[in-house]
């Protein structure tokens, strides 16, 4: 090693020097080849100390420096900066931790002296093998990915767009708007939901900053705040979106029908369909799982019916790769599968409905165009709404979703509006009516209903065509019963969590960074969460949280700001790598890819965080952990074992 090495001993104002034989230590250091200068200072981290160090480095034109002092944890940066200022590569520094891990932990002066010597010699031997490294920084990407296009997703996207950011809004369904777009009215204002949300939908769909990707799913995510690489799978709609007018000629002619989940299964849809009347964007998709043509049969009825020749059976799925700086997860929630609560007999006794079904019966864009009728077509005369169906129940949902009660009040009003003479009963434990408008809204509503209080136990049974409800040792019969379950995370939350490497809470909602201080950040820097994906909440809270996430990310992702990336990364020597692939699965940051051309592995230095695990596992020594190379570690081993 032909470096000019300088060794600087920090007395740490006698905290160190009192506890060992300084001269002995320094004498040893002086004997080592390559050490051209050895000096002590009372306190190297002090302003004078720094000045001293800088001058010494210049004066003795050192190109590698050992600082024997406190822990590198405290002052490695400090001294690296000094090297840099004096024109020496900052990585030409090696600190010998002779304070915390030597004199302070070793009462015996002689032992401390010997150990300090070993550490200093190891540092000298190591620094002789150091290489100059260049710190790298990348410009952070200000663009945003929003996953889920319910009210929360749309609100977030809108905010980013307002700030002029490019937004990718990804929705797995054919249409945007989530649940809200499918209900008639919202509490407490009883405002028309479609009227309320449609403008938001249209705005987003037409926003030049926002690329709406419906019928699409996330395939792969890599990276960190400021630099995420995301692969998005665009499922084939089998429709030419430019040519399609949304005239609706195609679906009536489709010979296939299945229950439509967007109507809670109350009505059927065809293989080619739009989820519900007025869904946006107004473009049908072909469900290839049930389409005859994709079952190998020769059917082209929809294509024949299309005036614009917009049906494209040959359309293929496409994976697009986008780079964004931040991500918002707004995948929403859904209602608990109430059929799991056996004693309520949902799906077994005709006339028992769940919230969504009721909403759709009420909705004028629903299957009955707003008429509340039973399967036989008659309007129900006597209706019961059962609150907390499955909620606050250890066997089902232990928690209270906090929005069902008020929503039920809304249903009461909708029902009374549709069937004024209907007899309406509410079965509840106690009402949860949060918010400044909640109580008033409930009080006003309850005048319209006959309420039964019950204590926990409730079940239903079939009694000749009617539904009997048994509670509090009393029974009563109804034409229609509405069960209102609580809110759970959307079914694919788990998959999303894995893709984005996020933590979930006990109930499967995305875990917030802090349950009080920061509910809009996920467990991963740069990924925000909004809406029911984080916890059950109403529209108002969802919107607020969405706006919050936007604020956080906009603050973090300032265009032009540089993000420093790890310097001590691992690199794979192309000449040496044999392509055994043993390293690839080891990287916690998926930073290693296999180059099919060259048949070797490559490290993406932007993603690499420098843990060196792959280097430790590389059987041909091709993977080299910068600043922690074998050679450098062995240099230390050699001295500390002397």
């Amino acid at each position, binding site marked *: 090693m032909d470096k000019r090495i300088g060794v600087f001993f920090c007395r740490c104002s006698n905290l160190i020097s009192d506890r060992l034989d300084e001269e002995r230590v320094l004498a040893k250091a002086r004997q080592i080849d390559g050490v051209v200068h050895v000096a002590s200072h009372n306190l190297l981290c002090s302003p004078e100390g720094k000045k001293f160090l800088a001058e010494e480095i210049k004066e003795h034109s050192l190109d590698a420096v050992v600082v024997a002092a406190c822990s590198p944890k405290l002052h490695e940066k400090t001294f690296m900066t000094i090297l840099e200022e004096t024109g020496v590569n900052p990585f030409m520094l090696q600190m010998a931790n002779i304070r915390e891990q030597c004199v302070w932990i070793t009462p015996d002066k002689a032992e401390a002296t010997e150990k300090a010597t070993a550490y200093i010699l190891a540092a000298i031997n190591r620094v002789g093998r150091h290489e100059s490294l260049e710190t790298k920084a990348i410009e952070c990407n200000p663009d945003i990915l929003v996953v889920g296009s319910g009210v929360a997703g749309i609100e977030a996207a809108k905010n980013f767009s307002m700030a002029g950011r490019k937004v990718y809004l990804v929705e797995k369904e054919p249409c945007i708007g989530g649940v809200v777009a499918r209900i008639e009215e919202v509490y407490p204002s009883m405002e028309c939901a479609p009227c309320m949300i449609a403008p938001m939908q249209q705005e987003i769909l037409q926003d030049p900053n926002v690329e709406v990707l419906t019928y699409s799913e996330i395939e792969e995510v890599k990276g960190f705040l400021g630099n995420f690489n995301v692969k998005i799978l665009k499922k084939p709609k089998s429709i030419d979106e430019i040519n399609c007018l949304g005239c609706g000629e195609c679906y009536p002619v489709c010979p296939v029908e299945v229950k439509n989940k967007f109507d809670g299964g109350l009505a059927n849809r065809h293989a080619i369909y739009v989820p519900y009347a007025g869904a946006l964007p107004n473009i049908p998709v072909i469900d290839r799982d049930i389409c005859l043509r994709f079952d190998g049969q020769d059917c082209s009825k929809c294509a024949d019916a299309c005036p614009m020749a917009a049906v494209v059976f040959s359309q293929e799925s496409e994976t697009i790769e986008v780079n964004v700086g931040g991500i918002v997860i707004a995948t929403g929630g859904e209602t608990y599968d109430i059929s799991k609560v056996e004693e309520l007999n949902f799906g077994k006794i005709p006339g028992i409905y769940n919230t969504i079904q009721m909403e759709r019966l009420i909705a004028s864009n629903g299957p009955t165009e707003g008429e509340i009728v039973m399967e036989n077509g008659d309007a129900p005369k006597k209706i019961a709404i059962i609150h907390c169906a499955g909620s606050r129940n250890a066997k089902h949902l232990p928690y209270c979703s906090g929005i069902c009660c008020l929503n039920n009040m809304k249903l009461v009003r909708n029902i009374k509006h549709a069937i004024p003479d209907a007899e309406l009963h509410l079965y509840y434990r106690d009402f949860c009516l949060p918010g400044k408008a909640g109580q008033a809204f409930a009080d006003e509503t309850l005048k319209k209903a006959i309420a039964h209080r019950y204590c926990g136990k409730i079940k239903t049974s079939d009694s000749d065509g009617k539904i009997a409800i048994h509670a509090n040792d009393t029974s009563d019969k109804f034409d229609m019963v509405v069960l209102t379950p609580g809110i759970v995370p959307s079914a694919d939350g788990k998959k999303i969590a894995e893709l984005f490497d996020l933590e979930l809470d006990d109930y499967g909602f995305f875990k917030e960074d802090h349950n009080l201080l920061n509910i809009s950040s996920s467990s991963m820097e740069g990924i925000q969460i909004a809406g029911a994906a984080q916890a059950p909440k109403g529209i108002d809270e969802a919107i607020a949280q969405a706006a919050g996430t936007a604020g956080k990310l906009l603050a973090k992702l300032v265009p032009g700001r540089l993000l420093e990336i790890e310097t001590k990364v691992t690199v794979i020597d192309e000449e040496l790598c044999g392509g055994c692939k*043993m390293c690839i699965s*080891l990287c916690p940051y998926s930073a290693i890819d296999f180059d099919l051309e060259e048949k070797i592995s490559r490290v993406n230095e932007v993603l690499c965080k420098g843990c060196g695990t792959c280097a430790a*596992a590389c059987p041909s020594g091709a993977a080299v952990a910068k600043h922690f190379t074998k050679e450098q570690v062995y240099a230390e081993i050699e001295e500390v074992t002397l």
Partner: protein
Amino acid sequence: MSKPKVAFYWNASCGGCEEAVVDLAEDILTVVEAVDIAFWPVALDFKRSDVEAMADGEIAVSFINGAIRTSEQAEMVTMLRRKSQLVVAFGSCAHIGGIPGLANVSDKAGIFDRVYKTESTDNPSGTFPQTKTDIAEGTLTLPEFCDTVNTLDQVIDVDYYLPGCAPPPDLIMGAVAAILEGKLPPKGTVLSPNKSLCSECSRQESKPDKIPIEKLARVTEISPSTDKCFLEQGLICMGPATRTGCGERCINANMPCRGCFGPTDEVLDQGAAFIGALASNFDADTPEAADAITEKLIDPIGIFYMYGLPSSILKRVQRKKEGGE
């Protein structure tokens, strides 16, 4: 001008390296024409005295195979080093110790105690071979048998290495050509590509990027698939930790690599490097789970160091007495 003198010598080896030379078939004739084989005990009138009589450096190049197992071998190669301008360690045994190097799991006492007391040995008096035996007519002598097998470069300075058990013809001819044409790489070069075997393996393409190793298998339990990566099948294949250039002879016979070419330049210890690569991919996140997989690896030394024990960092199994020899 006179042809360059070439010497071939062998130590603790099997003769396979000589076979490899003979397997050059027609090619060997061209070699024989180009050089003057000054010394080849297998082939020529062996006169140690003749070599002793040579001037230092008179031999252009000595190809020496076999590990160093006896004092005689050590003396012989020391002399050859002196007489030769270049010394090439020829084959796995000279390069990294080879199979005879596995003897470093034991020592002279252990070996004598077994070899001369086997079930079939009729040796009631417990006679062992002696370096000196006095008989009525005089004294018979034998060379000393070492406790530890050494690679050639642990005994003398080596210029180049021809790896393999045995080295394949193309590498041999390549080396000979390089020497004859004076196109020599830097001293210490192993005359085979500095990449792992996987780079040439026909099964690399189909090998998945991620192979979580749930459990290891033995060839006693399964029949190896003819196209899947052996590790993917749970069978130990030293390919990832082994230098390429062999022509994947074992893989072509549907058998996993055992590492006869030794590691690549950057690796000090072939076995340790392989342990790092293999075990990091164990599908285990608890000590218990890791132990469960490890349990299947009954003979780590025999598998990970089958050819390279003497050249490994620890070199031999450590004997339960303080100090080495």
